């Protein structure tokens, strides 16, 4: 059941919307950056192994 936030709905919903959005952006950014770094390193190491 949805709680009745009354006159403070903007403050509460705004806090949750901004807070959760920022958390989601942080998590997604860090995971994507890690994936990109892993792929790039694998690519460089692969090319290096190919030369040797």
């Amino acid at each position, binding site marked *: 059941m949805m709680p009745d*936030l009354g006159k403070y709905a903007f403050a509460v919903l705004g806090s949750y919307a*901004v807070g959760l959005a*920022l*958390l989601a952006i942080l998590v997604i950014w*860090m995971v994507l950056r890690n994936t990109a*770094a892993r792929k*790039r390193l694998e690519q460089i190491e692969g090319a290096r192994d190919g030369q040797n």
Partner: protein
Amino acid sequence: MSLWEYANPVKFLSFSGKIVPWFAAGAALFIAVGLYWGYFLTPDDYKQGSTVKIIYLHVPAALIAINAWFMMLVASLIWLIRRHHVSALAARAAAPIGIVMTLITLITGALWGQPMWGTWWAWDPRLTSFLILFLFYLGYVALWAAIDNPDTAADLTSVLCMVGSIFAVMSRYAVLFWNQGLHQGASLSLDKEKNVADVFYQPLLMSITGFVLLFVALVLIGTRTEIRIRRASALLARERG
């Protein structure tokens, strides 16, 4: 087995790869339960009405914002004393997390403050020290990005981290130091009498646990990223040289 073994990047990557999923799953579970419990199952506060629900985001984010800086301080000191690269990279990895947590604290604080204090912002000691902490985080990230030599960058950012620790301490204890301003005292205390009521305390504890687990998971992921970027740069430099 010594903790220092994990200063070896290969061992760190291997070990952290195994524990990250557990921390991430724990974070998701605790945050989901804490926020659901706090938002849907707790009553309004007799003074603050439904705005008390903001506590489940505001307090955990503030706690991480301050303690992330202390984690960076410890990692920076380890770098300065023992020159372990993983330690410097862990400090670097924690900074973006600290930025986001400080931002969440400032924004949710403003949204909470407007209906309670009648203003979005006041130059209150705790609010001001938090804003300065936020600027220190930005400066820390900018300094890492501005210096090409990674060891020099690690040295200088470590010094900046030590200076910024003053503001991290102030963010935590500003209310006690000055005993003035709009912001209330700490919501959590070892003294049970000073804590928020149990009905708010239990979901808050769940949410805090979730944020701590999330912080650990993200620091590990970020450190793994920085190690890989450093390794890729070193390999490319070796090929060119």
